């Protein structure tokens, strides 16, 4: 017979084992991608797959030579940042008015905004393409910034709205009594209180913009192409260049993974320390 203590120990060991198995399962494709990126094309294609091989940096050098990684990375960064900043400029006032000055239409507006996310993007490809062409914005970062903002705005408004909802109205009313204008109320009281929520919204927006591929592939060619377009340019239907594709994917993922990893700690801190109550 096992004692209660021993049963508990077995239980926690079992749960730990399952957790590790799931984590490894999720991590494996990324691990394999990074591993493959250091193989030669022949090693990458070998069957059975090889775990022991001579690592090489050729793939990375090749990508830098052929395409110029930094140009794509710079486009990704400016588009993601630009769209996030633009999104905040609209989302914060929208969420403020809906959270603190709701009308009987507020709920409907929120749901309507979300419903726009249900439309398949390809359904508006032609009109948007033509609009971009008309304004001379094909292959421009501005076009992507505007489109990403419009795509992500519903989610940003929803997120910020939920954070604002948790802030007691009294605090804003106190600021109003203290002589704050609406702008001062938002900038000096509301935003500092909800900085944890704003930070997670920013992070989500950056990740969504960084990973977006549909519009970047369809609206850019060379000038404004971000990293997702770079990856796509290495995927050939024949699937011959596994190693190079892995290398370019690793390069595209790395910045956002590292960024997410660093800001994760900040986020948790911001969320718990910025708590209102």
């Amino acid at each position, binding site marked *: 017979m096992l004692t209660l203590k021993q049963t508990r120990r077995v239980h926690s060991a079992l749960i730990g084992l399952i957790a590790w198995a799931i984590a490894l399962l999720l991590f494996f494709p990324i691990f394999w991608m990074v591993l493959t990126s250091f193989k030669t094309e022949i090693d990458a294609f070998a069957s059975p797959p090889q775990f022991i091989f001579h690592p090489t940096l050729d793939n990375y050098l090749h990508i830098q030579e052929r395409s110029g990684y930094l140009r794509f990375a710079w486009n990704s960064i400016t588009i993601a940042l630009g769209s996030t900043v633009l999104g905040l400029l609209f989302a914060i006032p929208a969420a403020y008015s809906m959270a603190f000055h709701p009308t009987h239409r507020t709920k409907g507006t929120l749901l309507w905004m979300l419903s726009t996310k249900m439309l398949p993007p390809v359904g508006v490809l032609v009109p948007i393409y033509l609009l971009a062409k008309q304004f001379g914005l094909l292959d421009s970062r501005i076009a992507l910034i505007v489109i990403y903002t419009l795509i992500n705005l519903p989610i940003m408004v929803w997120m910020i709205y939920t954070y604002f909802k948790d802030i*007691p109205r*009294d*605090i804003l*009313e*106190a*600021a*109003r*009594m*203290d*002589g*704050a*204008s609406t702008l*001062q109320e938002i900038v*000096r*009281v509301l935003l*500092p*209180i909800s900085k944890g929520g704003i930070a997670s919204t920013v992070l989500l927006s950056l990740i969504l913009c960084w990973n977006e591929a549909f519009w970047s592939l369809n609206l850019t060619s060379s000038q404004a192409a971000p990293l997702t377009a770079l990856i796509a340019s290495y995927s050939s239907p024949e699937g011959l260049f596994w190693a190079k594709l892995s290398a370019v994917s690793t390069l595209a993922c790395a910045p956002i993974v590292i960024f997410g990893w660093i800001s994760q700690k900040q986020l948790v801190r911001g969320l718990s320390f*910025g708590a*209102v109550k």
Partner: protein
Amino acid sequence: MADLKIRDLKKGFEGHAVIKGIDLDVNDREFVVFVGPSGCGKSTLLRLIAGLEEVTSGTISLDERDITDESPARRDLAMVFQTYALYPHMTVRKNMSFALDLAKVGKQEVESKVNEAARILELGPLLERKPKQLSGGQRQRVAIGRAIVRNPKIFLFDEPLSNLDAALRVQMRLELARLHKELKATMIYVTHDQVEAMTLADKVVVLSAGRIEQVGSPLELYHHPANLFVAGFIGTPKMGFLKGTISRADASGCEVELEAGCRIILPRAAEASAVGTPVTLGIRPEHIGVTDAGAGSFDVTADVSERLGSDTFCHVRTTSGEPLTIRIPGDFRDVYGECLGLTLDADRCHLFDAEGQAIRPLMRQAA
């Protein structure tokens, strides 16, 4: 100077009237308390004065200046909220100086005003702390400090003590009373607690269902309630009510026949035509005398007694089933289930007509 005048003020939310026509004057340096049961509109009235709600109709003026449509920032009023509403990301010092910083007041002046408020409220050692590091009572003091530094024309308090525990509430009540004297300020205070209203106010405004029931000094309300609502609302334990009809009315007063089983002559000015109309007699617990069964005006059956040491509250029921509470000074033996005789002090009885309005006492002849 701070003279607030409210004229025919009305407020509705989506067609539902909450404030139904209020006329009120708040004079300079007065401590005015709005009291009433929850949902009576007292907080809404305060928020209308503050400018946090838009007025549906009527006017509010402060020192002859119409502020009905003025933004809260320009009304020169400060408010202390029930939830304190401190800025959680600012230190106590910053919380108190925020309004002055917004008004671009010079650094030295801000410094001296904050320090002065901190001295009055004994907040000195807490100035660099964040609100979450403070206790409930300390937070409340910071909220008051935030109002003091602004030197507003009127202080508005929205149930400021209801989130504190009982002991702290009594202490803060005294501090507020002292503060009012020290600052010589005009204050408007909202509460549902009639003890707070009685102890703090120069002038009590009793509200019910969006209307003013009576305005007066605490003792005026206690001794001369204008209607049944005020009579029942002010005073603990509550005033006792006995149903009856007027059986005779003349210049010497009126005789009331109570359902409890007695006739009593009251010095009240009822018209002769009022004979036969139903009335309600009100009597405070301390104005009822206890004697042996059969020896008083009428008999009652004793229910439980609450012995507080200083007083005993003896709950009884009349033969017609009406509950009464009697306040007996000091200790009193347990009389549960016994039959007691009661005497009523006719000079201390209140009388209300069928509409619940007080029937005024006879004019006393000048001595």
